[in-house]
């Protein structure tokens, strides 16, 4: 999770390309070259379908994040030469806020997630070392 969200990463690259007046496809290709993971693979398939002139809906439907789906829909319009500069600015704000919220949520949930291995494994490991020998000794003496 360290670093930028893949969706935000793609958006920033595309926004930069639009600001500099460069083709959107170059920004998408640079994203595909530099990033790895599930989303870049989906983008690759989406891009291939688009370049072949086919419908991209099957790929878009596979994407769970509504932000990423929305972004690809906007980019598709951009690739069809529609002006998307302003939409990208708005989308960036939305995705930025969503990312901030996700980090906050993860930070809040983390103590509970970490509690499980701590309570189920590490705490018993300490107890076993601390009390185990004495309990065994006690049982032996009682017998």
């Amino acid at each position, binding site marked *: 999770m360290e670093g930028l*969200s893949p969706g935000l990463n793609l958006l920033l690259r595309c926004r930069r390309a639009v600001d500099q007046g460069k083709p959107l496809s170059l920004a998408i290709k640079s994203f595909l070259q530099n990033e790895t993971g599930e989303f870049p693979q989906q983008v690759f398939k989406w891009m291939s379908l688009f370049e072949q002139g086919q419908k991209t809906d099957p790929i878009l439907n596979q994407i769970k994040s509504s932000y990423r789906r929305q972004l690809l829909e906007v980019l598709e319009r951009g690739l069809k030469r529609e002006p998307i500069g302003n939409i990208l600015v708005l989308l960036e704000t939305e995705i930025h806020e969503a990312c901030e919220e996700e*980090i906050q949520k993860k930070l809040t949930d983390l103590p509970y997630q970490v509690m499980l291995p701590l309570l189920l494994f590490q705490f018993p490991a300490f107890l076993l070392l601390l009390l*185990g020998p004495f309990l065994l000794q006690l049982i032996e003496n009682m017998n």
Partner: protein
Amino acid sequence: MILSLLITSFGFYFVSRFLQQLSQFFSISSQKKLFFQVTQLILFSLIFYLLGKRSFSLWCVNFSFWLIGELAVIGVKSLIERRLKETALEFIDQCCLSTSAGNSFRSSLQKVFFQRNDWCAGQFKNLVQNLVTSNANNVSSTGFLGEFRQELTQIDRSGQKINEQLKILRRILKIEINFRRKSGQVLRNLHIQALVLSILYLSFIFFISSQIDLFKYQRLFLVSVALFLTGVILTLLAGRRLKWKV
């Protein structure tokens, strides 16, 4: 003898691969590269000479090289990349200031990048030098340095709205650094917990072994260690499972 030589060559290969991977993230001068290679050669000759007849020890030493190398690449890569990005941001800030004051892009780059003399600045100097002397293609760097070189070259070639382009680059870098710091906080908490508990557990083992004879309770000890390691692995796995959903 042949087996020992083979094991040593494996170790040599692992260390070479480690150095090769590191050189992809930041530039190393050819003199330093030569120095590292010679040191590596001497080190492995020494290891072969000392442990050549003890295959198991040789395996252990070479396995440790592999393990340390693999772990170090991950740690060093993220550390170096973070420092390089922060330094790049500082440089771009100064470049923006200099171009706003009416200086040309190239003279701003030269002025800004050659002011500092620390290690991070040194990584950028070669890059900027080549850009200024129009030999940008001669620099072979990948990762962040490679991308940064591409960005600077593009800005330099475009020749217009340099200040605005620099500001866009600065904004993106700032967002990236900010998110890296925040998301890194999530993982850092996990790693710190695993580390603190491991240190506590080890000190606990030392304390208990000083009080009682642990060999008498071998099974108990092994079950405890297995439980603790499972806990540590699950904690670290929880960190690996964290993925961006947005």
